[in-house]
C-alpha cells in the first residue's frame, strides 16, 4: 500500500473541499436567489466539468497555463514554479474539476428553503448576512454536507486531470488513482487490488454518510436532490 499516496489524496481532497465550500456558498446563494441570463450563464459554466472530458481541463492547465503563455508566466510569479507537477497545480485542477459537485447541491438546498422563513426574519429587521447564517444555512445543512462529501469523494476519484498535469511525483502529485494505474501497468495486481479496494471503501463510506445519517436529512425529511 502506498501510504504516501493515500495521505496525499486525502490532503488534496480535504483542501479542495475547504476551498470549494468558501467559493460555493456565496456563489450558490447568489444563483439560488434569483433568475436571469447572468445566473443561467454562471450555472452553465459551473456545470461544465460534469460534461467536459477531464482531458480538456488537463490540456488547458498544462499548455494554456504553461510557462510559454502570459497567464502561465503570471502563475509562475505567484507560485514560483509552473502549475504543472505541483500540489498547488493539482489543487487548482481539482477545484475546477469538482466545482459543480460543490455548487449544485447547495443551489438545490437553498432553493428548497421556504421563502416564508427568510421573509419573516427580514421582516424582523435581521440583516441579510445574518439571515443567511442563522436561517438559510441551518435549514440547508443537509445540502452543505452533501456538497462537502461529494466534493471530497469526487476529488479522491480524480484521474484524468492528475495524469495530464501531475507528473507522478511521490508526495506531491502521485495520488491513489495514479498509484493504482501504475500498479496495473506494472502487472502488480496484488497491490492494485489493495489500492482499488481502499478507493472503493473510501467512496462507499462517504456516500453512506449521505444516505444513512439521519441528522443529514432535511428538516422536512427529504434528502438533498442531487443524491436522490
Amino acid at each position, binding site marked *: 500500500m502506498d501510504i504516501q499516496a493515500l495521505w496525499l489524496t486525502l490532503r488534496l481532497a480535504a483542501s479542495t473541499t475547504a476551498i470549494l465550500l468558501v467559493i460555493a456558498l456565496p456563489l450558490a446563494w447568489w444563483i439560488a436567489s434569483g433568475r436571469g441570463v447572468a445566473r443561467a450563464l454562471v450555472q452553465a459554466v459551473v456545470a461544465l466539468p460534469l460534461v467536459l472530458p477531464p482531458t480538456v481541463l488537463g490540456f488547458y492547465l*498544462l*499548455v494554456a497555463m*504553461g*510557462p*510559454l503563455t502570459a497567464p*502561465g508566466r503570471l502563475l509562475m510569479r505567484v507560485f514560483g*514554479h*509552473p*502549475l*504543472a*507537477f505541483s500540489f498547488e497545480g493539482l489543487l487548482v485542477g481539482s477545484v475546477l474539476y469538482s466545482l459543480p459537485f460543490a455548487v449544485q447541491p447547495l443551489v438545490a438546498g437553498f432553493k428548497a428553503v421556504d421563502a416564508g422563513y427568510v421573509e419573516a426574519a427580514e421582516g424582523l429587521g435581521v440583516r441579510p448576512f445574518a439571515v443567511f447564517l442563522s436561517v438559510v444555512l441551518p435549514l440547508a445543512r443537509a445540502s452543505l454536507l452533501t456538497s462537502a462529501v461529494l466534493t471530497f469523494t469526487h476529488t479522491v476519484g480524480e484521474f484524468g486531470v492528475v*495524469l*495530464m498535469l501531475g*507528473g*507522478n*511525483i511521490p508526495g506531491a502529485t502521485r495520488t491513489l488513482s495514479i498509484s493504482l494505474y*501504475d500498479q*496495473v*501497468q*506494472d*502487472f502488480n495486481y496484488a497491490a492494485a487490488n489493495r489500492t482499488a479496494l481502499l478507493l472503493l471503501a473510501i467512496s462507499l463510506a462517504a456516500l453512506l454518510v449521505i444516505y444513512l445519517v439521519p441528522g443529514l436529512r432535511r428538516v422536512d425529511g427529504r434528502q438533498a436532490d442531487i443524491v436522490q
Partner: protein
Amino acid sequence: MLAERYEKATGVKLLVSYGSSGTLTTQILNGAPMDLFLGADFVFPEKIVAAEMADSRAPVAYAKGTLVLWARKDSPLQPISLDTLVDKRVTSVAIANDLHAPYGQAAVAALKRMKMYDQVKPHLVIAENIAQAAQFVESGNAQLGLISLTAASSQRFQAEGTFVRVPTTTYAPILQCAVVMAKSNRLAEAHAFLDWLLKPEIQAVLGTMGLEPVK
C-alpha cells in the same frame, strides 16, 4: 508518418492505438482486439509471447531506439550537455514512467550509470509514456527531458529545441520488438506490415526518424 506511407503503398488502412508499452501490453493481455503490437522494447512483447497470445515464438525486432536529453532553444540552460542534468538551476526533468515505459527504464538506468540519479531524482517528473515526457518538456512545463530520438527528430522538436545523445553505453539497448496477435482476424495483413517494416528501404527511412535499423 510510416503509417501514411504504408497506406499509400498498399491501400491497407492502419488503425493506430498509442500508449506506453506496459499500458498496451496490459490491454492486450486482457483481450484488447489488436492485430499487431509494436513495443518499444523486448520485455513487453515477450510477455505476450509468454501468454501464448502471439503468432510467433519470439518477438521480432524492428528498430533500435536512442535516448536523448532535450531542452527548448529558449531555455536559459542552453547550450545543454549531459552535465546540465545536475545544473543547480534545474528543478524539473521529464522522463517516461520507469515501471512500464522502456524509455523511462533506459533513462533511470542511464542516470544511475552516470552517477547522477540521486541528484536528479528529486527533480524527476514522470510521464505516462515517452510521448507525454516529450510533451511536458516541449510545452515548457519541464526544463529538461530524457526523451526518444524519435520525438526529438520530429519537425516540431527540431524547430523548438536541441538535444544531446545519452551515451548508449549507459543503458541497455532499446531493442524495439513487435508481435502479431494469434487471435487477429487480419493475420496476413499484420504479418505483411511487419515484413514491410523490415524491408531494407524502410529500415533506411527509420534512420531519418530517430530509430536505428536492426540489421
